């Protein structure tokens, strides 16, 4: 494709988009400027681009499409009967009070909070929407003074491809299907009515009703494989009023069990993240410290301890010892250095 054909594409597409934008904007202005609903005939006369349509039928089709598209943007386009005596004649208008964002005044602290709230999405799929929301507030005269929060960048990420389709499904209350990777690594097809999206400890989860299991379920977005497909109609189900997504998500995480602390031998100068959480630290000699530390989930903690390699040794309890030893043994056994297919020599 050369430059020439590229410029043709631009010339052929751009004017029609510009013409349509102009038509829609003129329509919005006309409907906002009238107190009385406008009949289709008057709308056709009021918008220059409609006057140019070849026939009444062509105008009708164009207006019906435009009307739907404006409503999709959230513009409250009202339909009403123009004259009670002739109730087959419909009129259209947009109520300015329904249309406009109400005037809101915010305190400086509230403004700082709003600026940070918008910034949270700056690396996420909703960045444009957050920016549009703040721009609208600025357009009502709110001064978005961000001096007190310069350099502060709280943010969440929505890297999972499944985030956007699931967010739309939650918004529209529409069922979805997807493939889900179970803990053992196998895939299973799921059909879910999504109720909520929750980000917890840096991970996204969707909560909802699992149609096959007929039960509430939690799914981690990072384990959804392939596309999320919307199925069925919009608004197809109600979300239980008492649904608290975070409670459901937490219930899938390991419980905090009241148990005695682990006793670890930690090499001097190492295990600093463990030392900071320790209940108590004592010196064994100039090489080793003895560290008492609380933990929640034995598998997670065993992995953390194993990560220190020879710098941390578990003294107690025994099941933690076993879990750490099993990880280290596996790691040693798999790192033979042999090229796949080559004979392993010892």
């Amino acid at each position: 494709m050369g430059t020439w054909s590229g410029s043709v594409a631009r010339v052929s597409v751009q004017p029609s988009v510009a013409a349509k934008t102009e038509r829609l904007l003129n329509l919005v202005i006309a409907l906002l400027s009238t107190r009385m609903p406008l009949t289709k005939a008057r709308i056709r006369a009021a918008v220059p681009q409609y006057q140019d349509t070849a026939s009444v039928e062509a105008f009708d089709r164009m207006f019906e499409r435009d009307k739907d598209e404006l409503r999709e943007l959230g513009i409250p386009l009202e339909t009403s009967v123009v004259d009670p005596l002739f109730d087959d004649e419909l009129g259209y208008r947009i109520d300015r009070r329904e249309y406009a964002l109400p005037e809101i005044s915010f305190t400086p602290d509230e403004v700082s909070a709003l600026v940070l709230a918008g910034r949270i999405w700056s690396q996420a799929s909703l960045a444009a929407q957050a920016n549009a929301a703040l721009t609208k507030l600025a357009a009502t005269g709110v001064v978005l003074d961000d001096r007190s929060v310069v350099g502060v960048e709280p943010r969440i990420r929505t890297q999972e491809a499944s985030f956007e389709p699931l967010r739309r499904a939650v918004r529209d209350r529409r069922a979805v299907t997807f493939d889900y990777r179970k803990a053992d690594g196998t895939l299973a097809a799921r059909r879910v009515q999504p109720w909520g999206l929750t980000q917890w400890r840096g991970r996204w989860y969707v909560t909802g009703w699992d149609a096959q299991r007929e039960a509430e379920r939690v799914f981690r977005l990072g384990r959804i494989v392939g596309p999320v497909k919307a199925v069925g109609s919009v608004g197809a189900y109600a979300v239980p009023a008492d649904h608290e997504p975070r409670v459901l998500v937490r219930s899938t995480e390991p419980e905090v069990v009241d148990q005695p602390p682990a006793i670890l031998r930690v090499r001097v100068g190492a295990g600093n993240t463990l030392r900071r959480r320790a209940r108590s630290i004592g010196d064994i000699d100039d090489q080793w410290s003895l560290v008492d530390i609380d933990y929640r989930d034995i598998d997670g903690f065993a992995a953390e301890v194993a990560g220190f390699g020879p710098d941390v040794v578990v003294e107690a309890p025994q099941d933690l010892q076993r879990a750490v030893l099993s990880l280290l043994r596996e790691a040693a056994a798999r790192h033979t250095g042999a090229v796949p297919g080559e004979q392993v020599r010892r």
Partner: protein
Amino acid sequence: MNARHVQESATTRLQRLLTMVPWLLANQGVATERAAEQFGVSTDQLESDLALLFLCGTPGHLPDDLIEADWEDGRVFVGNADAIARPLRFTVDEALTLMVGLRALGAGAGLAAPDGVLGALTKLEAATGETAGLAARVRVDLPAERGGEMLARAQQALHQHRRIRLRYASARDEVTERDVDPMRLLNLDAHWYLEGWCHRAADVRVFRLDRVESLQLLDLDGTPPAHATSRDLATTPYQPGVADVVVELELEPSARWVAEYYPVESVKELPGDRRRVTVRAADPGWVRRLAWRLGGALVVTAPADLVAAIREQAHAALAAYPPQVRS
């Protein structure tokens, strides 16, 4: 730019214009570049938007009915646009971003004044009505940092441009003391990071707050040098360097997530849902630790000396246990 022109729909452009008019009315005389930046478009696009406004107006479409738009000397003026002088209400998605964001701030990261969060939330809920119910179904947590106290002090240093003294345990598990001029405070997923000019390294460094052992505000100006530039942390706080070691890994299905979590150079899907991954590391210490943590679900295949180190040190770790436990 061509791609943008071809892709943008009339409704997307209309949405922008309906916000642009009131924004320009509230910011009369704003520089063209500033306005373009606000709407995330080029100045050419902005000017073509203004030219389009110029053609629109109230029925009749005589010169007096049309919107006035003037951007001759790099400053934008707009007038005669009463009908669309106020922005359209928030869309569901727009309202959602602010309300979910405010709830996350309110949940206790300690970044914003609680009154400010609550006040803004109450006012937005009143203005947006039914969206509030939906916003409650999308929940975000910002990571809390030890009661928010460390975070609050770092924020104070940033705001007051004060130098700070850190005691810091690095990823290599070494504790150092450093004086830092703070530049940014940000979180990535579940962790908070402080970016600043480190006087010890004479370079920009990123510190993970949960590895900071103590943070002390000094009575010294903490303005970073003019040439200190923020790193692009959009993906990860880790920055590849020229001296890096190229490490090859194989991931079992249960460790597939490693390819998403760490900055990998390449990912190749293998049979049986396994993955082969290449990463660059300035110090492969974290790879070694990850290999032990994952107990064989992550296998390093190159370089050979790293493979040997992982094996030999795992054996050394095992040898520290009494024989009856080991068997």
